[in-house]
């Protein structure tokens, strides 16, 4: 009984720590993105609230929480209200299987620094990311607005298409590690990170993951100069905040997955495991902001052609070649 309650307590502490980390990091990723993007465009970015605008995320949070939560006329209320939660919850749940570091020793017990080390953790991530599409599609549909509907349709089509190349690009990684567990995949990279042996898989994964998270150059679902704001045009207040939060948590998921699958996860010299892990997430996030500041948006046909005619065939070839090399 005692061990059971202790285990439960440890689980709760872990959940709380991860949730707090994710929400804080999401808030400050917004700040980082605005600041870095501003510098790329020779602007200052937020600099009014606090030193270097560091209090800006908190001010934004208060603003979103206190704004009116409007529901457009003719909208499907139940689905309209539920959709933003789907986006955020699926993004947050993905962190349940992501390891932040090696085992921790506490009171003579070994505590793994992951909420749940599933032996099929990677499939869990895929299942959740495929559920995230519901938030976009239904949110866009339920708003009863042309912009939202178009954004929702674009979002659904884009996410369904890129999920394929996302999954296929990771098959070679699973073949090399011999496991779906994210902890085992990190352990398999003790000698060298997989980016060195699987550069093609890395490129395919990063491109598809950026398309999945709907960021520039793949931000067609919310293209502001064509669709207003796409699927979240009609949302205000905290519900818009949930969409926004989901997007930035997704950015962290992407950073964490790149770190775990290709960059060796928490391993690195001198610093502790979690520190290395956070640095790697931050580097991936900075590269994504840099890409946002550099590239224009793709056209819709280019988006579909890239996904179906370039990335998926390349990923399939990569699987066959990796399989052949492993067999030989």
């Amino acid at each position, binding site marked *: *009984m005692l061990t*059971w309650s202790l285990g439960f307590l440890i689980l709760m502490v872990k959940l709380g720590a991860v949730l707090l980390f994710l929400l804080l990091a999401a808030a400050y990723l917004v700040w980082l993105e605005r600041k870095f993007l501003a510098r790329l465009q020779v602007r200052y970015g937020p600099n009014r609230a606090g030193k270097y605008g560091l209090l800006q995320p908190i001010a934004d949070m208060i603003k979103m929480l206190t704004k009116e939560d409007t529901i457009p006329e*003719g909208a*499907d209320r139940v*689905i309209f209200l539920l959709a933003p939660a789907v986006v955020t919850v699926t993004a947050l749940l993905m962190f349940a299987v992501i390891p932040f570091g090696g085992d921790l020793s506490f009171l003579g017990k070994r505590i793994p620094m992951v909420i749940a080390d*599933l*032996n*099929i953790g990677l*499939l*869990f991530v*895929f*299942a959740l990311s*495929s*559920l995230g*599409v*519901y938030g976009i*599609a*239904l949110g*866009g*549909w*339920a708003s*009863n607005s042309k912009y939202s*509907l178009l954004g*929702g*349709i674009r979002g*659904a*089509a884009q996410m*369904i298409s890129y*999920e394929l190349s996302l999954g296929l690009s990771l098959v070679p990684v699973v073949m090399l590690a011999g496991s*779906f567990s994210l902890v085992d995949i990190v352990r398999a990279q003790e000698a060298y990170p997989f980016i060195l042996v699987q550069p093609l898989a890395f490129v395919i994964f990063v491109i598809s993951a950026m398309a999945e998270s709907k960021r520039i150059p793949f931000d067609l679902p919310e293209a502001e100069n064509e669709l207003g704001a796409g699927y979240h045009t009609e949302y205000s207040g905290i519900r818009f905040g949930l969409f926004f939060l989901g997007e930035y948590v997704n950015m962290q998921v992407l950073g964490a997955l790149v770190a775990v699958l290709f960059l060796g996860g928490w391993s690195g010299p001198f610093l502790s495991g979690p520190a290395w892990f956070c640095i790697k997430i931050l580097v991936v996030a900075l590269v994504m902001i840099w890409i946002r500041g550099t590239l224009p948006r793709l056209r819709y046909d280019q988006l579909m052609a890239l996904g179906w005619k370039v990335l998926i065939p390349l990923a399939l070839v990569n699987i066959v070649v990796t399989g052949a090399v492993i067999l030989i």
Partner: protein
Amino acid sequence: MSFLIGTEAIAHVAFWIVVGLTFGGAVIAVFPRNIIYNVLGLVMALSGVAGLYLYLGSFFIALMQLLIYVGAICISIVFAIMLSRPLHLEVPKRSVPKVAMAAGASAIFFAAVVGVIFKSNWVPAPEQSGDWSVVTIGHLLLTRYDLVFEVISLVLLVAIIGAIVTAGYSRRFSS
């Protein structure tokens, strides 16, 4: 010992919640007139089935159920519905012959399933095999059930070719 009874009770409650989810979802999938609610009911029912797989001890199959049925098939249904009639239009009335035919077909299928249930000899999952890991399922698919596996691949291939041909023809007609 009290702790063991506790977990068993939790498992029972979880089982009935999952069954309720499946049945509730099925009811929503059939009765409301708003077609998006029907799909969401289907999503609920399929998630409930995933929960049943989880209860039977195969996390892998549960996740696959979520990934394929909820994450792919129902999403494409939602996608198709988004392209169909708008929300604010009036929904047509249910036609009695269609309802009767659907009910008849469902009744026949239900009778067949009940027949199979009574005829088969049930073995509890833990006695049948304790090992539902990915490795076992993979081996079984490529050894004992490889004919089924290949036939399903063939069916899917035919479906893909059919979709391409249909899309190609309709495009040629419209241009």
